[in-house]
């Protein structure tokens, strides 16, 4: 039995806004998205029903599975690649720079996260074009021209532009938090710099390294700008599949099936990554 308390208006004023707004406009739309996958589309209108047609039709097409493995593979690759590319920079920021220089660099890295990725992708389109600045520069030393757009390479340039700032922030944050005396002790005990890195620094920074890779995965998995404007949209990724299915016709329920498959995948990967980041601590 809980004792009943008098209605505390003050408390509710601060607690309810989130519940009301995110309930009505985040939870309910997602629940509706799930319900919609069982609806019927007739005469270009959605009608409530409980049929499995949308699931069968969507999961039965090879175009879905091609897109699924492509998107998953690219997101995993981007997670690994971004982590590897970011690490030397994060290491330098964490161990070779003063506090104020590091803070300034991190503040700079936050900025692109909030600036239009669409315009940045368009700038890459121009920079990497067949007759663009990069090929012109390479041409002066007798190389190229290279076709860089409308390919996996182009998409990866976009993904890295999108995720690198965040990965560097996560890595630097966890590297800078390592107790320096630990590293010095390992050095004093005769461990080589490589050994110190593998046996001391990487395990100690595990949380930030894994979270950085996880966010790179999540952002790449859900991005449609890079594959669409830099990757040439063929073959389509899951995001492009959703947009095509939604925008060309009224097959929203089938787009919703793709969306739910994406959510399930994100949950699975996030759960595994969080276990890797925080699990096994004694």
């Amino acid at each position, binding site marked *: 039995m809980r004792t009943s308390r008098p209605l505390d208006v*003050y*408390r509710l*004023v*601060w*607690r309810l806004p*989130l519940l009301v*707004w*995110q309930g009505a*406009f*985040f939870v*309910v*739309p*997602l629940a*509706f*998205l799930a319900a*919609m996958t069982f609806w019927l589309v007739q005469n270009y209108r959605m009608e409530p029903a409980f049929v499995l047609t949308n699931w069968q039709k969507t999961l039965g097409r090879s175009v879905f599975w091609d897109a699924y493995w492509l998107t998953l593979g690219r997101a995993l690759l981007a997670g690994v690649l971004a982590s590897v*590319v*970011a690490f*030397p*920079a994060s*290491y*330098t*920021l964490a161990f070779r720079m003063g506090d104020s220089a590091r803070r300034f660099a991190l*503040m700079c890295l936050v*900025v*692109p996260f*909030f*600036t*239009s*990725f*669409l*315009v*940045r992708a*368009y*700038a890459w389109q*121009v920079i990497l*074009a067949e*007759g*663009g*600045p990069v*090929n*012109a520069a390479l041409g002066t030393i007798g190389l190229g021209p290279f076709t860089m757009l409308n390919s996996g390479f182009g998409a990866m340039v976009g993904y*890295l*532009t999108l995720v690198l*700032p965040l990965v*560097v922030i996560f890595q630097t944050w966890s590297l800078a938090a390592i107790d320096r005396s630990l590293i010095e002790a390992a050095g004093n005990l005769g461990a080589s710099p490589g050994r110190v890195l593998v046996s001391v620094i990487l395990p100690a920074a595990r949380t930030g390294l894994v979270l950085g890779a996880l966010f790179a995965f*999540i952002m790449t998995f*859900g991005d*449609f700008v890079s594959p669409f*404007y830099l990757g040439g949209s063929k073959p389509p990724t899951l*995001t492009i599949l*959703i*947009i095509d299915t*939604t925008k060309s016709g009224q097959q*929203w329920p089938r*787009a*919703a099936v793709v*969306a739910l498959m*994406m959510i399930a995948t*994100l949950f699975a990967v996030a759960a595994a990554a969080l276990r890797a980041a925080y699990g096994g601590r004694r």
Partner: protein
Amino acid sequence: MKAVSALGRVYLAALFLFIFAPIAASFVFSFNSDRFPTLPLGHFTTEWYARAFSRPEVWEAIRNSLIVAAATSVLSTFIGFATAYTDFRYGFRFKQAYLALALLPPTLPLVILGLAMLAWLSQVGLSGTLAGIIIAHVVLATPFAMAICRLRLNQIDPSLEAAAWNLGAGQWMAMRHVILPFCAPAILSALCLTAAVSFDEFVVAWFVSGLNRTVPVMILEILQGNVDPQINAIGTVVFLTSMTLVIAAQVLIFRKRRHE
């Protein structure tokens, strides 16, 4: 060791160059006469700005963006602050779930949120309206406001509020004279950051906007046509706006206060 350190700095500089190259390039191309920019660059021109900003639909989009960003900023900062204060002040059952609801939305791919919003708002008759975009942007921006306000509340001495109560202030009075003044920089910071989130968001806005385009949605639709340097001109203005907002947000929250 010196050589390693220097190499590290060169690498770091190269990485920053990669990250910021598109922003810088867009700025340079916007003043460059070539339709298809390459090296060497063409001559200096403001033609693209003149062309872009003589189009009435651009001004229409700017107006829409400003309305949406302003409304999103105020609403999400209020909800974010209320949530941060709830987390700071109260413990309750299901608090984990409450906090998950507060922080999860930005991790959901925008295309999925866009589809869910479109379907749901169509059911309730709000799709294609600016209100629909505002609703979605508040969902996305609230977690950022919540995080900033929570960060600030971390620095307050919890006994300060209690002291105010002991001195006879009611809860509302303590909120007004103790908590709110203390959080003022964070609230301003959140207002800026959430405005930036809204101002740059184009995926969900594209799904639900219909004919009421915001600036990024208009850019997206122009991009589906042809290469057009007007994008660089509009893009540079968009960059400068959101960078100003984000830098203002950071300065407000991180600047050292003399009397603390």
